[in-house]
């Protein structure tokens, strides 16, 4: 039955033609990709990986702004990336477009306004009273916010000699609030170093620290009652400042 075989062969060819031609020729590729309801994840991921970036990261800023970087690296803001405040740098890199920087109190307050929800060890201020209405950056260099500011308390005497440049009731406003408030004021005092200076200048009348103890953790014993406890006017002091007054013998 050759004609039957011929007919079957013809049918086969027609069917192949019917399936292959429409599939290969006029069907848009996007339809074929649907396949068994599966997109091509590798191609799609490649597309996602290929979209342009906007934030360039601090390591790029350093290339040109090394002066700012050196300052920034020392300060407490070294954990804050450049683009956090300055915004994404891609446009600036492309055509050197000058950035429009927001220097308002609100910008600083975004992080530093006092909020109950913030971690207690994060520096926060009352934005209503701190520094009046002035922009924060008039006093604080944003790249090194504590530059020129009082040291974090308690501080040592190391490298300091003129106490009254800060601890002076006649000095400008911010320092009025800082210690010593307890236990003593500056009233009637002028020679800070007789107590707070180097060992040899300290008052000999104050109790001495036994040399063998070295003044490492005074409060470990001086709060227990086993040895002489702290006098009442020493409330709130820590071991870090004992040697500011008490001579090591």
């Amino acid at each position: 039955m050759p004609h039957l075989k011929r007919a079957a062969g013809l049918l086969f060819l027609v069917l192949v033609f019917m399936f292959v031609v429409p599939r290969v020729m006029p069907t848009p590729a996007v339809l074929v990709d649907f396949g068994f309801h599966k997109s091509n994840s590798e191609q799609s991921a490649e597309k996602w990986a290929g979209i342009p970036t906007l934030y360039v990261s601090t390591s790029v800023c350093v290339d040109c702004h090394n002066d700012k970087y050196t300052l920034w690296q020392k300060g407490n803001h070294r954990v804050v990336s450049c683009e956090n405040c300055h915004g994404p740098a891609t446009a600036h890199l492309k055509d050197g477009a000058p950035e429009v920087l927001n220097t308002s109190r609100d910008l600083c307050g975004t992080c530093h306004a006092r909020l109950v929800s913030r971690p207690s060890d994060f520096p926060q201020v009352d934005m209503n009273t701190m520094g009046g209405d002035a922009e924060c950056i008039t006093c604080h260099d944003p790249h090194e916010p504590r530059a020129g500011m009082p040291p974090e308390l308690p501080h040592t005497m190391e490298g300091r000699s003129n106490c009254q440049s800060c601890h002076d009731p006649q000095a400008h406003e911010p320092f009025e609030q800082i210690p010593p408030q307890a236990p003593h004021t500056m009233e009637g005092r002028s020679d800070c170093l007789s107590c707070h200076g180097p060992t040899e200048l300290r008052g000999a009348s104050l109790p001495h620290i036994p040399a063998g103890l070295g003044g490492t953790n005074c409060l470990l014993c001086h709060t227990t009652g086993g040895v002489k406890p702290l006098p009442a006017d020493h409330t709130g002091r820590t071991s870090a400042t004992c040697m500011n007054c008490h001579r090591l013998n």
Partner: protein
Amino acid sequence: MKISRRDFIKNGAKGLVGGIIVSSVPSLVRDIAAAASVPGSYDWEKHYWGFVCDNERCIGCGKCVVACKLENKVHWEPEYNRTWVERYVFTEDDKVFVDSPNAGRDGFAKEPISTKYDGLNIRKSFFVPKLCNQCDNPPCVTVCPVGATYKTKDGVVLVDQEHCIGCRYCIQACPYGARYILPDTSGTHFGQVRVVDKCTWCYHRITKGLLPACVEVCPAGARVFGDLEDPTSPVRRILSEKRVYVLKPELGTEPKVYYIGFEKGVY
């Protein structure tokens, strides 16, 4: 000459099977070719990304939300977010309040908690950054009827927006609210609208060796990103040193955003 019924069926079946086989060749060739290509110089088999959010460090400044919106062209309106920050407030009488004004985009300093929660006896309060958890067992991928959302080999859940039909099943399925529908062309990367969009952990950045934008700008170190395959990565260090928690572990989604400083009531 008549063709017998048997022959007709026999030959017809042969033709049909042959046609199906032959017609599947082009798409097979395409699939094989695609599988062989590796995206760029980045080898996604060598990485497996992880993320840490530190609730004890987050200061609620919202810089992460802003950076995400700029970097990923996410709509500025607070209804559309790939990442956001929530404020949790626990009172002395064991009530829990959660809010996220403008999704945390403008920070929380403008409206102090003292006015918003006036009269409440607050026991404690903290911020919780949220984003896609890039689950190891992602329910969004399971429910997608067209296979348009998938997990990459480096552990990130992405959406093929050219195949997404915008049916919103995945939005329903995601227990973390990480997905949204692109409302118009302003937020699209590949031209599609009314398709689903989500956090990609900045896939375009991490595949180039950069950090996700939110991690890049976080001033408090509350967001940490790294490679779970790399023993020296910051994420691996935290996972080996700290007690970490995940959101809704009972759902078995196996999230890869790990939280430090968790609290009963955070979900």
